[in-house]
């Protein structure tokens, strides 16, 4: 039977807008959430640190990050399993990106973008397969292109897209400042937001450099409400990342495989 391509998808991005507000450190999470009826809008106290963080990341000429990720996958039988990965990304604006994803089963993915070519190398149980495609000229264009056209997700894309500050507000239904909650001993603003399809939380460092320390998404509309969580342990804004960081060099055992673009109308899933 013929099947018609549908496929929707999207790449992402977020964040917000805000007005700096002095906040009372005496306020507790329960105070914030129970003071009145459920919030009907996004609290400025939540938006301010979020906006500062996004602007900081958007303005960084170069940055790198490493995060310890866990995510749930609901199996066909309904059982929810959790998997873990270490994801890293190094970015040099406007046109260089390098990412690595190391799964808990040993599978490795390495992504290289040098301004004209996007290369994906997977290393799994001794097999090294890679594919190369022509890519748009900037990181900003690369991220949606890679996701939609080839199903390639870049780690932490939500945080590094320069237009994130403009994209998120429209999607937010509520936002709250939950409290001053440390992450691995570092003081942070714990914020919670709700959108139509998901709830998410973020812990943003209170001290410079402003950056995310932890991020949790709950996909509340999906069966069993799977979660994604990442704890960052290495946000940096290096002065310079050498070109070699972003260039893929084949090894003897590497095998090239052609890439098949997704249908023009969207992405699978």
């Amino acid at each position, binding site marked *: *039977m*013929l*099947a*018609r*391509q*549908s*496929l*929707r*998808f*999207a*790449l*992402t*991005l*977020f964040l917000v807008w805000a007005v700096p507000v002095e906040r009372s450190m005496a306020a507790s999470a329960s105070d914030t959430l129970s003071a009145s009826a459920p919030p009907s809008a996004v609290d400025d106290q939540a938006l301010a640190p979020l906006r500062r963080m996004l602007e900081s990341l958007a303005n960084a000429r170069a940055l790198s990050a490493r995060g310890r990720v866990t*995510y*749930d*996958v*609901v*199996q*066909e039988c309904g059982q929810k*399993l959790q*998997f873990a990965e270490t994801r890293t990304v190094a970015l040099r604006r406007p046109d260089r990106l390098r990412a690595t994803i190391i*799964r808990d*089963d040993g599978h490795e993915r390495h992504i290289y973008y040098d301004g004209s070519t996007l290369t994906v190398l*997977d290393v799994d149980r001794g*097999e090294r*397969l890679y*594919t190369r*495609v*022509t890519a*748009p000229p900037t990181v900003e*264009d690369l991220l949606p*292109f890679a*996701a*939609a056209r*080839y*199903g390639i*997700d870049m780690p932490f894309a*939500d945080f590094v897209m320069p237009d994130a500050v403009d994209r998120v507000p429209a999607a937010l239904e509520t936002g709250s400042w939950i409290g001053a909650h440390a992450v691995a001993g570092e003081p942070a603003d714990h914020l919670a937001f709700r959108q139509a399809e*998901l709830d*998410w939380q973020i812990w943003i460092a209170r001290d410079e450099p402003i950056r995310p320390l932890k991020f949790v*998404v709950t996909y509340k509309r*999906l*069966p069993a409400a799977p979660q*994604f969580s*990442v704890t960052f342990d290495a946000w940096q804004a290096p002065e310079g990342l050498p070109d070699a960081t972003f260039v893929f060099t084949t090894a003897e055992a590497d*095998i*090239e*495989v*052609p*890439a*098949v*673009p*997704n*249908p*023009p*109308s969207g*992405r*699978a*899933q």
Partner: protein
Amino acid sequence: MIRPVGLLVAGFVAGTVFAGFAAPSPEPFTREGPAARGSLTPDDTPISPPVDGGEPYDVWPPPSEDPQDPAVAEVEDPDSRREELASRDPDGWRSWRSHWYHRHHSDQAAFRRLHCQPERVFVADALHLRCGGLWLARAFVDGAFGYGVVGAPEGYVTHALDGPCEPVRLDTTAYCYLDGVFYVTVVRGTARPHQVVAAPVGARVSSVPDATVFISHRGVEYLQFDRTFFDEDPAGGGPRYRVVDNPFLPSDRG
């Protein structure tokens, strides 16, 4: 899930290296799911098309908003789609991204992993993979390295086809058409086996393979299987599908 596997065509296939094969790995679980991306944007949200449709990564028309479009209807009703997916995951094949709550097509156009031990067939010194009646090639599809369903490779010679073929005549050449592949009869001593040849542009056939996909390019909808593109003329007399030039080739970009 549907994929234009035939887009191996536009330059990709020329350099194809068949990467050997992996033994079947019937993992009892999947580690793919929507939460793995950690994205704040639901998957069904369309993104903006690139401003430069003429770039090498070609056109990008917006998704259909027509509620009569099966693709749209599917997204609107994931529960019924899930039931359909469950009924269409036959014969031990694990369809690409067949996770039960994913809202997408499931189709035998590409596979993440195989539940068979593929036969290794060399044609013109190139390794090809075959599982039953399906020919496969390693391909990067929708974010992962897997297997795309392709046609039998050109030059492949067989003495026995997998089923009755449709006779097709174009100009002075007689073809035998089966499952998206055109064969001609060749002479091998006293034998008369069938050899796979390139799909002849202009040939008309009455069917296309299950793994055929719809794809739209510059406002025109095509059907595509591996390296072969068809257009459709259901109203006309005679065979319904016609082989056309690959619309994605650079020479056709105008």
